[in-house]
């Protein structure tokens, strides 16, 4: 009863005060657009039990190992780097290191989505270095910052982990619209080109036509596709995919999942189940890749935390880095959570998905 009374009191205070305050100057309500009336019954997906996996066997065609030159990381990134370079240019144009220099660097890092917290830490350390190492020229300062950035990105192994033996399951997770399905398509094609046999599992049973989208990619990659019904249970699809992969001797199972906001408890629970099921023999989960859009801001860190908590993320795929976004959130994810960026999407083509190179990434940030 205590709680109820307190809540009532609080509401009365807020409600009452609102009147006292607004009565005097009641602002015209925004007429604007009227919100639609109460929703009619939203379409319900069929119960998850009803699952008819129709293992559509797309017989792998002979894939010619295309020898395409991988795009140079820096060339691609370089296209739209001018913004960051502008700040760096301003720093270099001055003869000494002054307050403006620090302001410029701070703004540059924040605009790259490194985040105010990460930026403050980076610059704090840099200031200490300036003192202890006697850095006086802007040139040396920029070099020191580059080195710090590279250091914070250095370390972990960035290769996609493959264990010989039973089918390796690589699980792709992330929020809506980051490019999971497209990434799977590209990874599949690359793996096939490297001589591994690939099976794709259309675990996104929620988004309309997600399976069709993956089917197109499976065809392009010459991979087999296992799919369920729309609205079905994604773990069932993944289970069937692993079984089939084991039976037919596939090397890698690429499991797609529906995009989900990390705040939706039920959906995160569903994802845990997918991982549990994929882990069961005959499968082994060797990668859980969190796909993050390079345009994502500070929420990316929260996403990484939540997804890691749920399914133990092993690496990040940073997509859409060919725009003007700098993907600085990757820096925060690695330094705060220790999860390395493994792949980077630099364009729409299959070969535009490349291994992440921290040195090139940092160099590209500063290029003029």
């Amino acid at each position, binding site marked *: 009863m205590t709680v109820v009374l307190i809540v*009532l009191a*609080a509401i009365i205070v807020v409600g009452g005060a609102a009147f006292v305050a607004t009565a005097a100057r009641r602002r015209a309500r925004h007429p604007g657009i009227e919100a639609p009336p109460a929703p009619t019954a939203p379409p319900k997906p069929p119960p998850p039990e009803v699952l008819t996996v129709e293992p559509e066997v797309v017989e792998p065609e002979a894939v010619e190992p295309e020898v395409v030159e991988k795009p140079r990381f820096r060339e691609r990134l370089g296209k739209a780097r001018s913004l960051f370079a502008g700040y760096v240019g301003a720093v270099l144009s001055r003869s000494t290191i002054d307050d403006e220099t620090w302001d410029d660097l701070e703004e540059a890092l924040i605009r790259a989505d490194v985040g105010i917290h990460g930026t403050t830490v980076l610059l704090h350390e840099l200031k200490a270095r300036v003192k202890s190492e006697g850095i006086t020229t802007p040139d040396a300062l920029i070099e020191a910052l580059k080195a710090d950035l590279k250091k914070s990105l250095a370390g972990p192994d960035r290769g996609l982990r493959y264990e010989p033996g039973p089918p390796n399951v690589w699980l792709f997770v992330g929020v809506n619209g980051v490019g999971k399905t497209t990434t799977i398509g590209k990874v599949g094609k690359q793996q096939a080109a490297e001589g591994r046999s690939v099976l794709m599992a259309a675990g996104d049973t929620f988004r309309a036509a997600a399976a069709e989208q993956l089917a197109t990619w499976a065809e392009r990659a010459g991979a087999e596709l296992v799919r369920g019904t729309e609205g079905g249970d994604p773990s069932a699809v993944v289970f069937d995919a692993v079984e089939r992969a084991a039976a037919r001797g596939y090397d890698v199972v690429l499991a797609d999942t529906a995009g989900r906001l990390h705040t939706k408890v039920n959906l995160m629970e569903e994802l845990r189940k997918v991982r549990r099921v994929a882990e069961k023999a005959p499968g082994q989960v060797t990668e859980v890749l969190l796909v993050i859009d390079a345009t994502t801001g500070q929420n990316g860190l929260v996403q990484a935390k939540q997804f890691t908590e749920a399914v133990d993320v092993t690496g990040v795929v940073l997509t859409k880095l060919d725009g003007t976004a700098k993907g600085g959130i990757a820096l925060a994810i690695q330094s705060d959570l220790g999860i390395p960026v493994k792949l980077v999407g630099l364009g729409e083509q299959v070969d535009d998905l490349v291994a992440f190179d921290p040195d090139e990434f940092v160099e590209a940030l500063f290029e003029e």
Partner: protein
Amino acid sequence: MFDALSDRFEGIFKRLRGRGRLGEAEIDEVLREIRVALLEADVNVRVARTLIGRIKEQCLAADLAKSLTPAQQVIKIVHDALVDALGGANLKITYASKPPTVVLMAGLQGSGKTTASAKLARWFKQQGRHPLLVGADLQRPAAVEQLRVLGKQVDVPVFSEPSSAVDVAGKGLDEARRLGRDVLIVDTAGRLHIDAELMDEVRRISESIRPDYTFLVVDAMTGQDAVNVAESFNETLSLDGVILSKLDGDARGGAALSVKEVVGKPIAFASVGEKIADFEAFHPERMASRILGMGDVLTLIEKAEEAFDQEEAEQAAAKLAKGQFTLEDFLAQMQQIKKMGPLQNIIGMLPGIPKELKKAEIDDRELARVEAIIRSMTPQERRDPSTINGSRRLRIANGSGMQTSDVNQLLKQFKEVSKMMKMFGKGPKGMRGKGPQLPSMDLGI
């Protein structure tokens, strides 16, 4: 990391209180905190700078030194500045005199254009219109298929063909005329704003169908880059409005502010969930609170405004301040609160409420019990609970079907709560504005 801005301000001002004066230096310290909060919320760094400038002017003008509650006054200034920046003119849809009214959807890959198109189609249907969806995203595999499925869900026809995006859009327009559909919504492929070729394509689509409304779909989770995207799309297509998607996550959504500031066009709609119906008009006040990490006081006030009788509420507030709030008033206010919906939902909107309380299961039946007890009292007893002696307690308990201990508990707590309310009641007076803040309270839970 995301502790509410109001808490931080309280801290700063507490420290400053000792110095007795609030000069420009102190205000600068507060402004730095505001900047950090804005940047953490992904407000673009330049936009943040402009805003801070505006806020500073207002802070200096407001003469905070004289205020008894400077923290709250600053919060109000910041909040109002954000609302002004986010709001302004709302978008009013005027339908073309010669139908169909053409709507073009554009945005980056994965921002949620296809879903937003279907949601918008449903919205138009609810306005009594007859939309036609056109799938001009021929880039992403199965994008048209996705639109068809969604079209079926909202019962709106979908037109597409495997030719070129520009052709599909043009033919879609003919198709709308032929079928007598009065709204045409064209979904386009996601494209990067620096992809010259694709930007040219969307410009040609726009030239061919001459849209009445062009909407940019922006992901609420977007970071600093939102301004570049919005600027480029606005240059190419001259936008009419923005649709903010994925607002159901926990992103603070500073991108909304950045985009609005750069493009100067209203944020027309917000997509707040995965279901087709989760689509609503944009509320600048709520977004402002969200960016600042505050509770949704304004939705609460709005609800209160709908439910409360104004005169009664004002009287109650006056009594509160004087400490003359009786059980009778409490009963009357309770009736109004009941109209606002489940208590649990209301708590979620209150600022400064501890997490434990927000998570506490609150049974609305408790309300009925409290009501029953109060209703079993005589008017005299309600006005002056001190007259309630042992035998009266028993009578009240029997009358309400509760135990005497329940009656005792209620009386005791009402006394405590009245004291607390008296304290709160004084707060807003000094503030002279909306957006009251509850001081952090020790609830002992």
